[in-house]
C-alpha cells in the first residue's frame, strides 16, 4: 500500500463575514412561514447609509456604530447584523433602539453565533427578533432556537414546510440555555 496523499489537501478557510447581500422571499418566524422583504447588506469599505436601498435592510454592525442616527432616521425598523467574529457586547447598551439582530452564517459549522444569541437573550435581555440567515438549514434550527434565535431565513431550494419539523425533534433537554432555564439535576432535585 502507498500513502493516501491525495486526501491530505488542507481545507480552505471560510471568511468570517458575508460577502454578498442576502435576501429571501420567505422566512420562518416563531415557527410560522411568513413573507420576508428585508435585505441583509454585506459590509464593504465605503458603505454608508446614503448607499442603502430605501426598502427594509439589516446593516453591518460597523455601519450601525458609525452612523447610528442616520440608520434610525431612515424610519424603518432597525435591524443590525453581528458577524461571527464580532461581539454582542458592542450593542449591549443600545439594544432598546434595535428591533432585530441578524446573525449571518457564512458556514453552518461556525458555532460562534450560537454564543452571540445566547448572550443577547440571557445576559443583555434582548427581547426583539434574533434572525439567523445564510447557511442555516433544517438541522440547525433546533439548537439555534434553544440559544435564542426565533427567526430563520433558509437558502433557496430548502423546503420550509419540512424544516418546521425541526422544532419538535426533542422534547427533553439536559441543560439550561435561552429557551428554558433548568439544569437536569435541578429538575430531578424537585422530584426527589
Amino acid at each position, binding site marked *: 500500500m502507498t500513502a493516501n496523499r491525495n486526501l491530505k489537501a488542507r481545507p480552505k478557510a471560510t471568511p468570517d463575514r458575508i460577502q454578498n447581500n442576502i435576501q429571501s422571499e420567505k422566512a420562518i418566524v416563531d415557527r410560522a412561514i411568513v413573507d420576508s422583504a428585508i435585505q441583509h447588506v454585506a459590509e464593504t469599505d465605503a458603505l454608508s447609509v446614503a448607499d442603502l436601498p430605501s426598502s427594509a435592510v439589516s446593516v453591518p454592525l460597523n455601519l450601525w456604530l458609525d452612523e447610528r442616527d442616520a440608520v434610525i432616521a431612515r424610519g424603518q425598523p432597525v435591524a443590525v447584523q453581528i458577524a461571527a467574529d464580532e461581539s454582542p457586547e458592542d450593542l449591549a447598551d443600545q439594544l432598546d433602539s434595535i428591533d432585530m439582530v441578524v446573525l449571518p452564517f457564512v458556514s453552518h459549522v461556525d458555532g*460562534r453565533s450560537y454564543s452571540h444569541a445566547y448572550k443577547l437573550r440571557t445576559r443583555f435581555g434582548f427581547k426583539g427578533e434574533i434572525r439567523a440567515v445564510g447557511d442555516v438549514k433544517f438541522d440547525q434550527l433546533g439548537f439555534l432556537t434553544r440559544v435564542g434565535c426565533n427567526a430563520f431565513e433558509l437558502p433557496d431550494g430548502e*423546503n420550509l414546510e419540512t424544516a418546521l419539523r425541526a422544532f419538535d*425533534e426533542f422534547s427533553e433537554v439536559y441543560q439550561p440555555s435561552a429557551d428554558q432555564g433548568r439544569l437536569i439535576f435541578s429538575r430531578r432535585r424537585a422530584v426527589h
Partner: protein
Amino acid sequence: MYQYDSIDKTIVNERVAQFRDQVQRHLAGELSAADLQPLRLRNGLYMQIHAHMLRVSIPYGMLNSAQMRTLAHIARKYDKGYGHFTTRQNIQYNWPELADVPDILADLAEVEMHAIQTSGNCIRNISSDQYAGVAPDEIIDPRPYCEIIRQWSTLHPEFYWLPRKFKIAVTGATNDRAAVQFHDIGLEVIKNAEQEIGFRVYVGGGLGRTPVIGKVIKEFLPREDILSYCEAILRVYNLHGRRDNKYKARIKILVNALGIDEFRTQVEEEWAHFKDQELKLHEVDFDTMQAFFPLPDYEVLDDGDARLEKWRSLDTRFNAWYEHNTSAHKHAGYRIVNVSLKEHGVAPGDATDKQMDAMADIADQYAFGEIRTTHEQNLVLADVRQQDLLDVWKALDAVGLATPNIGSVNDMICCPGLDFCSLANASSISIAKQINEKFTDFQELYDIGEVKLKMSGCMNACGHHHVGHIGILGVDKKGEEWYQFTIGGDASNHAELGTRLGPAIAKDKVGDAVVDILTVYRQQRQDDERLLDTFRRVGVEPFKDQVYAEQA
C-alpha cells in the same frame, strides 16, 4: 452503573428518530452528502477507505453484560463479526452500511447506549480511570462526576459547532490512568485542606500534530462549580478558538497563544456572570449520582486463597497470567482482572462477537455483570473473587483473552493505520505483528517489564505515540512507509513527551530497532528500573548509538 430515567431514554430515542430522518432525507435526495457529513459525524459515523465506520460511546468505559451482548450482536449482524476498542474507551465498527445505522442506534438505545458526539467538533465522550471504584490508590470515585458532565455536555446547543473536537477526562486516584494532562480539559478530583472535594483543572493538553501538556487553570475548583466552570471555558473557546485552520483549532493552540494567565482571566471574567446560578450543583446531586455506583455486594473474605496458591505453583501459564494480568483490589479477597485484547496476530483492541459474548457471560458469573474498557485498548473485570481466578482464567483462555502480556511491549496501543484510515502515512497493524514476532518468549517479555509502546500511522497521533515509553510514528517518505521513533514519553502524573531518537527507520527494521532499544535497557538498567527510569537517567544517546550502529 448509571441507569437511564425517562428523560435520558426520551433524549436517546428522539436522537435515533432524528438520525433516521436525516438518513431518509439523504437517501431521498433532500439532504446532500456534504450537509449530512457533520450530522453523521455527531452520531459517530465516519467515512473511511473501505466503508463507513461507526464509533459507539462507552461513557467512561463502563459496560454491563447486556450492553456487551448488544455490542456482540451489532458486530455479528451489521459488521464482519468484530469490533475495535479504542484509546478513548469506545468501540468502533469498520463495516456498517449507512442505511443500517439508524437500526444499530435503535438496538443500542434498548440497552441505554448511543453514539452521540463520538466524533465531530463537539464535546466528546468523557473518559476516566478504568479502575474507578476499585483501585487501592483511589481518593475519590470519579464516575459520578463523569456522569454529571456527560449529561450537561450531551446535545449542549451552544457547544455543538466548536472550532474542533473537545475531550474531557477525569481521574480520582493518585496514579493518573486517564491521561488527564493530555486532554482539552483534564480534571483531577482532589480534597483540599478542609477535606472538601473539588478539582484541579488542567486545560489545553492534547496530542495530535502539536503535542502539549495541559496547564493548570485552577488549583482547586469546588465540586459544585464544575459545570459552570466548564461552560465558561467552552464559551471562551467557542468564541475565540481559531477556525481558519483546522490544525490550529484545538483549545491548546488558543491557550498557548494567549498564555495561560490571560486565558484564565478571560475564563474567570466569563464565569463571574453566571457562576452562582442554575449550573451550580447541590450536595444532593452528588449523593444521588454516587448512589448509581454503589459498592457491589462484596463478601467478607481474606486475601490469599489455598486453591489459587496451589495452582499458581502448579501451572506456570496460570501463574504468569496472575502476575501480569491481575492487580490489587481495594477489598480483601478480590482482584482486578485485566483482559488482554493484544493476542498475538490480532490487531490491538479488536474483539470478535464470540469474545464479547464470552466476556458478558464471564462478567455475569464472576464479576457482578460489569466490564470496563481501558484507554490502553484492553478490558477489565473489576471485582473478581480470588477463589474464582482459576475459573475466570480458564474461561478467558478458551476464547483467546488470557494472553499474559498486560503492561509489556506486546501490550501496545496502535491506531488502525493504513489498513483502515484514509489519513494514514503508514500501516501500524502489520508493524504490531512484526514487533510481536520479536518477542514470542514470554520469560524475556517479563524480564523486560513495563514498557508502554504506542504507535500511530500519522501525525494525528490517534495511537498516542508522543506519550509512549517507546513511541512509533508512521511517516511518508516519497510514497514509502517509514517510522519515526521517540523514547521516554509518559502519559501518567509525571507527564512527558517522548524524545526523538533520530532519523526515521525503514519498515522492515522496526522490530529490530525495538529489540535494540530494549537490549540497551537490559544492559544499563540498575535495580528495579523500568525502561522509562533508565532512559531518564542515561538519556537518549546510548539508545541512539545502538539503533543506528546496526542501521549503518
